[in-house]
């Protein structure tokens, strides 16, 4: 082993964090190379000084200050406990002058009620629209799969408010008791009545709700392939 191969891993050699073969090779090199041996000594000294640094304790008044701050805090908000793709959580895109609609889907996994279609206000073609999809359950439910599917005339939009070709997203997470709201922004790329299908699954159980989005506009403004 040469110095230039050994030097970048001398720290890991010190920590004994190398595979046995490499550790032995570095050790052999250090035994025969005065320069690297000195470097190991120095690093060992540096690490010893770091480990000897004082560990300050939190000042006693910190707990008291925290207590006072918390006194003014309301009950923590219940938030979605899942990783929805960040690109879809893009409320800023509403700043493009989009119409805002809200649809609430209450999901009771144990019920056998049929799916319900909810129609939101009509939006112009080529405009973004924010839709709030609310998942409501009467108890915490773990290991849930969420699916949101768009029909042909709708597209999800990216963080810059531009439509992307994705028409279906799926993720796993959990639902906490009460209502969990997922804001989703979509764009109508063709006139028509399109729908957002939101499905939540747990084992063999599933509930789907359809949100109908009427998109208005003349056919000359249709964006080919949903891009633009």
């Amino acid at each position, binding site marked *: 082993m040469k110095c230039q191969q050994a030097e*970048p*891993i*001398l*720290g*890991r*050699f*010190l920590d*004994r*964090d*190398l*595979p*046995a073969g490499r*550790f*032995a090779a570095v*050790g052999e090199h*250090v*035994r025969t190379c*005065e320069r*690297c*041996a*000195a*470097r*190991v*000594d*120095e*690093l*060992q*000294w*540096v*690490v010893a*000084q*770091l*480990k*000897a*640094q*004082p*560990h*300050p*304790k*939190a*000042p006693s*008044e*910190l*707990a008291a*200050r*925290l*207590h006072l*701050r*918390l*006194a003014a*805090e*309301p*009950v*923590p*908000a*219940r*938030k*979605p*406990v899942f990783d929805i793709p960040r690109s879809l959580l893009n409320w800023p895109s509403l700043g493009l002058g989009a119409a805002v609609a809200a649809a609430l889907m209450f999901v009771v996994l144990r019920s056998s009620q049929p799916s319900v279609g909810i129609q939101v206000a009509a939006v112009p073609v080529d405009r973004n629209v924010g839709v709030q999809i609310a998942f409501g359950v009467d108890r915490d439910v773990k290991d849930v799969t969420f699916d949101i599917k768009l029909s042909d005339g709708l597209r999800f939009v990216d963080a810059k408010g531009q439509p992307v070709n994705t028409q279906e997203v799926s993720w796993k997470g959990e639902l*906490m008791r009460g209502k969990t709201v997922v804001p989703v922004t979509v764009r109508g790329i063709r006139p028509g009545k399109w729908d957002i299908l939101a499905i939540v699954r747990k084992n063999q159980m599933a509930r789907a709700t359809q949100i109908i989005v009427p998109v208005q506009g003349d056919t000359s403004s249709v964006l080919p392939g949903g891009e633009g």
Partner: protein
Amino acid sequence: MASSPEQLELIRRARNGDKAAFETLVAPILDRLFGLAVQLMRNHDDAADVVQEALVKVYRSLGSFRGDADFFIWVSRIVRNTVLDELKRAVRRHEEPTETLPESLDRSLEGKAEQEELQHIVQDCIGQLSVKLREPLVMYDIEGYAYEEISRILELNLGTVKSRLNRAREALRQKLIGQRHRLAGWIEIPDGGVGRSGGGKVSNEVPTS
């Protein structure tokens, strides 16, 4: 490592607004969180402010805490992000950190002027490192976080954590060499370096992993 059943119960109560449960939850980790903030910020008062602010954020965010995650790691990440935000604000305000670390010297070291002076010098040099290098160094070598914990807090892969730690130690070594005039007189300094000369005193025992 996931949170313990006791922690999960306290989290459940805190989520429902039980602030005493939240305070009980964070009390055992307050010193470690403060230590991390002090080492990154180089100032006791700022560190206390940041930890307090971060814990309020933690309380507000309890609804989004995953039960299968490690509560301490999650909180450490929030403290670290709050520190970074504060450091950025300080840069915008053109503030220089005020060195206050010697205030915290362990009682057993009081009166040991040489030891204090050495700690001063090491702290000075740590303070000159970029935050990117300082983070893994103080977390691993001073605060005792494991590689995996650092990886999750900094959201970096293990290889990057180890590589940055190596670079940080090397950078610190170089800076201490630059301070050899301050080290002279109480510690032997071989030509071109700090510490004792002698030749790689790492045990030859081969690691099993």
